[in-house]
C-alpha cells in the first residue's frame, strides 16, 4: 500500500463525478435524526449520501424532527433509526399526526424506506410495553411488538430475500422488544446467527414493497453496501422510471470487513452462502 501525500489528495478514490448539471438527483429524508440515532444509525444516511456521490448522483438530505409537517411522498428515500424508550412515545404521536399518512401512501406507490429498531417497531401495528401499555404504530408493516424479558444483544448474520435480490447481511442487534410477523408479513430474511425479530422463529425484519424494517445496527448500510445500492436503485427507479442504472463501486474495504465478521460468526463454510 502506498501513501500519496500530495498527488492523490483530491483526485484519488471513488470514480470521477460527471458535470453537475446533468447528474441525476436524489432526495433523502432523514426523520428524527436528533432522537433516533443510537448505535450509530447515522451511518446509514452517511452511506447513502457517499455512495450516491460515488455513483455520480447528486444527493440532498432533509432532516425533519418533532412537530414538522413533511410530505414523505416528495422524497426519493426515507431513513429512520433506533432510539431510546424515552423518545419512542413522543415520536409515535408525532408520526401519527404529521409524517405517517404521507409515508404510508408513498410506500404503497414504491417509496423505499429503511426503518431500524425503534422506527421499525413504530411502523408496525403497536408496541406493547412491559406494563401492558400499547403504543399504537402506523400499521404499515403487518407486525406487532411486545417488550420482552432481557435484551437481545450481539453480532448477527441474516440471509436476506429482497425482491429480486438475495443478500447475506451482517450487523449488530440490541433490542428489548420482540417483534412478531402477522399474516401476510414477509420477513427481510432468515437468521443465520443471532436473535432477529424475537429470538424464537429465526426471522429477521420485514419487507413491504420497497420498505424495510430491521433490527440491524452496525451501521447497517456501510457494512452491507449491496443493500445500500438496492435502496438507491429503488429510489432512482421510482424517480426516473428505470432510466438510471447504478454501476459497481470498489467495495473491497467493505467486503473485507464483512468477511472478517462472517467468518467469526459462521466459521469458514460461510463461503458457500455468498
Amino acid at each position, binding site marked *: 500500500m502506498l*501513501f500519496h501525500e500530495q498527488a492523490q*489528495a483530491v483526485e484519488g478514490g471513488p470514480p470521477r463525478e460527471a458535470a453537475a448539471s446533468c447528474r441525476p438527483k436524489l432526495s433523502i429524508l432523514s426523520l428524527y435524526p436528533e432522537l433516533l440515532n443510537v448505535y450509530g444509525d447515522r451511518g446509514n444516511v452517511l452511506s447513502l449520501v*457517499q455512495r450516491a456521490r460515488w455513483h455520480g448522483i447528486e444527493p440532498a438530505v432533509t432532516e425533519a424532527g418533532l412537530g414538522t409537517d413533511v410530505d414523505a411522498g416528495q422524497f426519493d428515500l426515507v431513513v429512520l433509526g433506533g432510539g431510546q424508550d424515552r*423518545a419512542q412515545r413522543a415520536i409515535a404521536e408525532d408520526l401519527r399526526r404529521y409524517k405517517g399518512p404521507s409515508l404510508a401512501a408513498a410506500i404503497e406507490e414504491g417509496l423505499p424506506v429503511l426503518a431500524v429498531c425503534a422506527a421499525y417497531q413504530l411502523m408496525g401495528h403497536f408496541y406493547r410495553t412491559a406494563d401492558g401499555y400499547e403504543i399504537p404504530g402506523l400499521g404499515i408493516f403487518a407486525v406487532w411488538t411486545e417488550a420482552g424479558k432481557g435484551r437481545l444483544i450481539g453480532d448477527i448474520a441474516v440471509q436476506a430475500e429482497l425482491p429480486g435480490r438475495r443478500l447475506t447481511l451482517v450487523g449488530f442487534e440490541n433490542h428489548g422488544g420482540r417483534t412478531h410477523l402477522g399474516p401476510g408479513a414477509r420477513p427481510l430474511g432468515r437468521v443465520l446467527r443471532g436473535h432477529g425479530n424475537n429470538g424464537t422463529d429465526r426471522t429477521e425484519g420485514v419487507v413491504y414493497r420497497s420498505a424495510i424494517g430491521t433490527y440491524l445496527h452496525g451501521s447497517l448500510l456501510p457494512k452491507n453496501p449491496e443493500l445500500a445500492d438496492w435502496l438507491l436503485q429503488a429510489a432512482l427507479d421510482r424517480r426516473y422510471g428505470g432510466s438510471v442504472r447504478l454501476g459497481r463501486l470498489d467495495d473491497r*474495504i467493505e467486503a473485507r*470487513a464483512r468477511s472478517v465478521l462472517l467468518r467469526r460468526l459462521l466459521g469458514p463454510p460461510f463461503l458457500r452462502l455468498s
Partner: protein
Amino acid sequence: MDRAGRWQDMSVDGVSREALVALWAGKLAMLVSRSLGRGGTTWPGRLATALEPRLLDRLARVPARGAVVITGTNGKTTTALLLSSIARASGLQVVHNLAGANMSSGIVSAFLENVSWRGQGRGDLAVLEVDEGSLTGVAPAVRPKAVVVTNFFRDQLDRYGEVDGTVRQVRDGVERCGAGTQLVLCADDPLGVSLSEARVPLNGSAPWLYFGLELPAADGASAHLTADGSQCVRCGSPYHYQRLYYSHLGHYACSACGHARPAPAVYAREAQTEADGTTRFELVTPAGSRTCRLKLPGLHNLYNALAAAAGGLALGFEVDRIVEGIESASTPFGRMEPFSVAGRAVVVALVKNPSGFNEIIRTIRSRPGPYHVVFALNDLAADGRDVSWIWDVDFEQLASPGSGELAWAICSGRRAQDMAVRLKYAGVVPERLVVEPAIDRALRRGVRLLPPGQTLFVLPTYTAMLSARRVLALDALPRASAGR
C-alpha cells in the same frame, strides 16, 4: 465484642478466622499473579470475596478518612488520579484502585494491597474509581463520604442497554450509600443533575455539590450527534441550549417544564490553552478563587479537574491544596500520554465512546497538521462488543477536504476493517488508508512512516490501549536510556 470495629488495627487474634483466611488467600493470589508476570488486578479480589463475602465492608473501614467514589461514563480515571493527587498534597496516604480494575473485585484487590498479612491497614483515604454498573454492590460496603459523578454519555450500550439504564443504576447505587454521603454532580449534564432527585438520606448539609463551566460556548460544538441527554429529564421535550460545550454538556433549559441547569458552586472561568498544551483557568469555589494550571488538554479534562476540585471540597480539603494537587498530578496512562520511540514523538489517547473520541479529535486538530494516526479498535468485553458507536464519531472533521490534513491512517485491532470502512465513508481516500490488524505491526509501521518532527497519534480502545502501551514501552526504553 464488635469484631468489625477492631479491623482498623487488626491483629491476628482480633480478627475472625474467615476474614484472615480470605485476606491471606487474596494476598497470596496477588503474589502468584505477579510472579507469573500478569497484572492480575481482579482475580485475587474475586477469590478473597468468595471466601468472605463481607470482606469489602471490613477492608473499607481501614482508611481513617473513609472513601470517595468516582463514577460516570467518561473521565473516571483522570478524575480519580487528580483527586488522589489533591489528597496527597493534603498530606494523606491514598489507597487507589488501578485504572480498569473498577468493578468490585478490583476494588477489593486495591484494599488487599494496602493491608498487611497481619491485617494492619495502611492508607488514610480510599479514592475509588467505580464502574457505573458496580456501584450498587460497592456503595453499601464502602459507604463513601462522597460520590463524584463525572457525566453520562453513550458508552458500552451492549452492556447496559441504554444511557437511561446507566443513570438508573448509578441512582440505585447512590441511594444505597447511607447517611451523610455528599453527591458531586456536573451541573452542565442534565442526566447527572437528574441524580439530585435520588433519595439520599440527609445529615444536615445539602447532599449535593455542583461543578460546571462558565465559559463562552465552544467553537464547533454540536448537539446533533448524540441524543443522550438533549431531551429534558423531566418531561422529554428538547432542551434549549444557551451555551453548548460538547455533546449534551452546556447551559440548558427546558421551555416546556422549566427544568434548567443549576448554578454550580465550583466552576471554571477564563480558561485558555497554552502553547504547550496545558490549560490555564480560574477555579472558583465557595472557599475562594485561584488560578490553576492543568497539564492535560481539552475541555473534557477541564471538567475532570473541576470534578476533582469539587470532590476535594466535599472531603474538606483546602483550596490551595486542591490547586497544588491538580497542578502536580502526572498524566494518567493512555490519556494523551506521550512516548518517544526511535526519536519520534508518539501520543496515546484512549478512545471509548463518541463524545470522548470527538474531544480527542478536537484536541488533535488544535495542533497544526498534517496528522498521522494509528486507530486501534478492539471489541472485547472491556472495549464494548458493539463497534457501531464509531459511526457517531465526527471523523469527517479529520477527513474533510477542507481540513485535508490527515496524511494517512493506519487501522488496527480486532475490528480494523470496520474502522477503515468508517474512515472511507468519512471521506478518507483509500490511498491514505492502511489496514493492519496486528497492533504491534501497525505501531511500528506508523513510527517508520512518520516524517521527522511530526507526532504519531495512537487512538486505541481500552484493551488495544493496553497492547499499544506494552509495545511502545518496549520500543521506547532502550532509546530513552541511551539518550540520557
